[in-house]
C-alpha cells in the first residue's frame, strides 16, 4: 500500500468525520440543553438536502441553495419544537422516541408528497468541481477539501458561540441547571426553540453539503442518524467538543477500517474471501470502537454525566 493511498484515506476519514460532526453537534446540543432524544434529526438533514436541491435547480446557485437549506431546516426545526417537542420535555424518553419517530414518518411522506419518489439532482458547483493537487502528489477532490474546511469553520463558530456569546452562556447554564436559569429570568422556552433551530440548521447544512456527492432521496437521513448517535455516545452526551472528536474518530476508524481490514485478511486467506470477511469486520469497526470507549470511559470522552 502506497503512502499516497494512506494519506488520501486519512483525508477521506477527516471529511466524513467533520460531516458527522455537523449532524452530531446539533443532536448533542439538543440533548445537552433539553434532555431530549430527537430521532427526527435525520429528517432535518433530509429537509436541508431537498431544499438545497430545489433551490439549486431553480436558481442554479449553490450558495443560495446552502442558505435555503439552512433557513428551511431551521424553520422546520423551530416549527417542530413549537408544535410537538415542547409538549415532550416533561415526559420520559420513551414518549420522546415515539413522538420523534412519528415525525420521521411524517417528514418522509410529506417530502414524497412535495417532491415525488424519485431522487433529486444536486451537483457540485462548477467552481468546486474537479481535483486539486496537494503537496506530496495527492490528487484530491476539491469539493471534499471544501467540506473539510466548512466543517472545521462551523466547529470554530460553535466554539466561539459557546465560549464568547451571551447565548453560549445561557446554553451552558441551561445544560447545568435549567430551573435555576429560568428563575434568573432567562426566557427558557425561547432559548429551547432557538437551540432546536440551531441544531436543525446544522443538520440541514450537513444534508445540503453532502447532497452534491450523494443521493438526495427520501430516507437519506436515517443511516447518518445512527452514526451520529454513535458519535455522541463516544464523544460524551451533551458535549460539542466531544461531538467533534467523536466525529473525527468515527470517520477515520470507518474509512481506514474499510481499507486496512481486507488487506489484513489477505495475509491469511485468498483475495475474494478477504474482501468478504474484511468488509464484514470493517462494518463492525466503529461499534467496537464505541464499546472500547465506553469500557474505558462510561460517560464518553468528554461527557459529564452518565
Amino acid at each position, binding site marked *: *500500500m*502506497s503512502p*499516497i*493511498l494512506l494519506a*488520501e*484515506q486519512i483525508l*477521506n476519514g477527516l*471529511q*466524513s468525520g467533520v460531516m458527522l460532526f455537523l449532524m452530531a453537534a446539533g443532536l448533542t446540543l439538543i440533548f445537552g440543553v433539553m434532555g431530549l432524544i430527537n430521532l427526527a434529526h435525520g429528517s432535518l438533514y433530509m429537509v436541508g438536502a431537498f431544499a438545497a436541491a430545489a433551490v439549486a435547480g431553480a436558481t442554479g446557485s449553490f450558495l443560495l441553495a446552502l442558505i435555503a437549506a439552512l433557513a428551511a431546516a431551521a424553520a422546520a426545526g423551530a416549527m417542530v419544537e413549537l408544535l410537538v417537542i415542547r409538549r415532550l420535555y416533561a415526559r420520559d424518553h420513551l414518549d420522546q422516541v415515539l413522538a420523534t419517530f412519528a415525525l420521521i414518518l411524517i417528514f*418522509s*411522506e410529506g417530502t*414524497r408528497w412535495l417532491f415525488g*419518489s*424519485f*431522487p*433529486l*439532482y444536486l*451537483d*457540485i458547483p462548477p467552481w468546486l*468541481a*474537479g*481535483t486539486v493537487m496537494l503537496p506530496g502528489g495527492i*490528487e484530491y*477532490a476539491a*469539493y*471534499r477539501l471544501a467540506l473539510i474546511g466548512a466543517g472545521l469553520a462551523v466547529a470554530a463558530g460553535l466554539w466561539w458561540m459557546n465560549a464568547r456569546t451571551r447565548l453560549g452562556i445561557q446554553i451552558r447554564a441551561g445544560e447545568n441547571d435549567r430551573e435555576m436559569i429560568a428563575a434568573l429570568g432567562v426566557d427558557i422556552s425561547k432559548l429551547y426553540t432557538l437551540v432546536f433551530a440551531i441544531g436543525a440548521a446544522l443538520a440541514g447544512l450537513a444534508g445540503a453539503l*453532502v447532497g*452534491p*456527492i*450523494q*443521493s*438526495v*432521496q*427520501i*430516507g*437519506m437521513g436515517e*443511516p*447518518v442518524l445512527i452514526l451520529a448517535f454513535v458519535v455522541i455516545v463516544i464523544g460524551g452526551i451533551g458535549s460539542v467538543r466531544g461531538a467533534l472528536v467523536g466525529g473525527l474518530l468515527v470517520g477515520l476508524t470507518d*474509512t481506514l477500517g*474499510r*481499507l486496512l481490514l*481486507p488487506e489484513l485478511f489477505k495475509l491469511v486467506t485468498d*483475495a*475474494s474471501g478477504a*474482501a*468478504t470477511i474484511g*468488509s*464484514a469486520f*470493517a*462494518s463492525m469497526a466503529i461499534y467496537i470502537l464505541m464499546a472500547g470507549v465506553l469500557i474505558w470511559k462510561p460517560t464518553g470522552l468528554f461527557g459529564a454525566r452518565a
Partner: protein
Amino acid sequence: MSIKSLLAAVSLAALASAAQAEVRVGMITTLSGGGASLGIDTRDGFLLGMKGQDDVEILVEDDQRKPDVAVQIADKMIQSDKVDVLTGIVWSNLAMAVVPSATAQGKFYLSTNAAPAQLAGKGCHPNYFAVSYQNDNLHEAAGAFAKSEGYTKPFIMAPNYPAGQDSLNGFKRFFDGDLAGEVYTQLGQTDFAAEIAQIRASGADSVFFFLPGGMGISFLKQYAGSGVGLPVLGPAFSFDQAILQAVGDAALGVKNGSNWSKDLEVPANADFVSAFQAEYGRLPSLYAAYGYDTAHLLISALDKADPSDADAFRAALKSADFDSVRGKFSFDTNQHPIQDIYIREVIKEGDIYTNKIVATALTDRSSAYVDDCSMK
C-alpha cells in the same frame, strides 16, 4: 336523479364489478421509502399492461421494502383476499421471504424483478415464474462485455449481501482474467471515497460495480468528481430511467448490461414506450418494462385457462405466448427466461438522460442454475 338513487346505482355498479372479477391478482411492491421509485414503475408498468382487463381484480399494497411487512401482506392477500396470483416484489430478500410459502400454498408467483439464485436452482417451484431475468444475468453480460472489450484488469465492487455476491460471481463467470481488486462495500453505504482511492491506487483499467438505488447515484457522482476517469461498467440498475436524472452528467458514456432498452426495435416495445409516456408523462424504466411484460404474460395465460385449473394455467404460463417488449422470450425448464442480453450506453437526448443499445453481450442466455432445478 337524487343523491340516494345515485348512491344506490354506484353501489350496485360496485357490486356488479366485484361479481364480475373472476381472477384476483395481488401486487406486493415498494411504494414508500428510499426504494419507492422502483416499485412505482413496476406498478405503473403492470397496470398499463392490465388496462381493459375488467374481469381481473388487482390489489396493490406497499411492502415498505421490509420482509416482515411483505410476508404479512402476502398472508392477508392469500387468506382473506383469496388472490390467485401474486407479483411485484422488487427486492431479493423480500422475495425469499414471500415466494416459497406462497407457492407452497398453491398460489402462482410471477416475478417482475427479484430472481435470486436460490429460486432458480434447488428452490425452483412449478408455480414460480421469473419474467424479468435471473439475478446474475445482467452482471454476466457486463463480464462478457469487459472480456470482449479487451479489459485486462477490472476493479469490481458490490455491497456485502447475497445479491451483491451473486453480482460479482456473475461478472467473474464470464470474465476469467485477472482482477485489479475486488471490494465488498456495506449495504446502504453512501460515501465511496475510500473505495475510489483504492481504485486509483490499484492500477485498474476499468471499473465494474453493482450498487442498487441511491448507492449507485452517490458512487457515480463521487467517481466523476475524483478525476479517476477509468471506463465504468455495471448492470442496468444504476443507470436506469428511474435514477439517471439524479446522476446527471456523471453517468454519460457508462456501459451497462440490460435485457431491455427503450430503443429496442420490437413493435411491442415501441407501443409500450409511447403508451407509458402518454399515460404517465415520463419515460419507462426497466422495472416498468418487466411489469408490463408480466401483465401480458398473465393475460395470455388467462385467455387459455383459469387459475383454478392449476395444471392448465401453469402450462399456459410456461408457453409464454405473448409479445414481449424484449422480442424473443421463452421459459427454460426452471421457468426463468431465455433471452438476449445487451450492452447499453448512457446518452443525453435533449435534456433527458437515457440509454441506447450498443452491443449484444449474450445471446439466448438462460441461467447458471438451471441444472440444479429438479423440474425438467
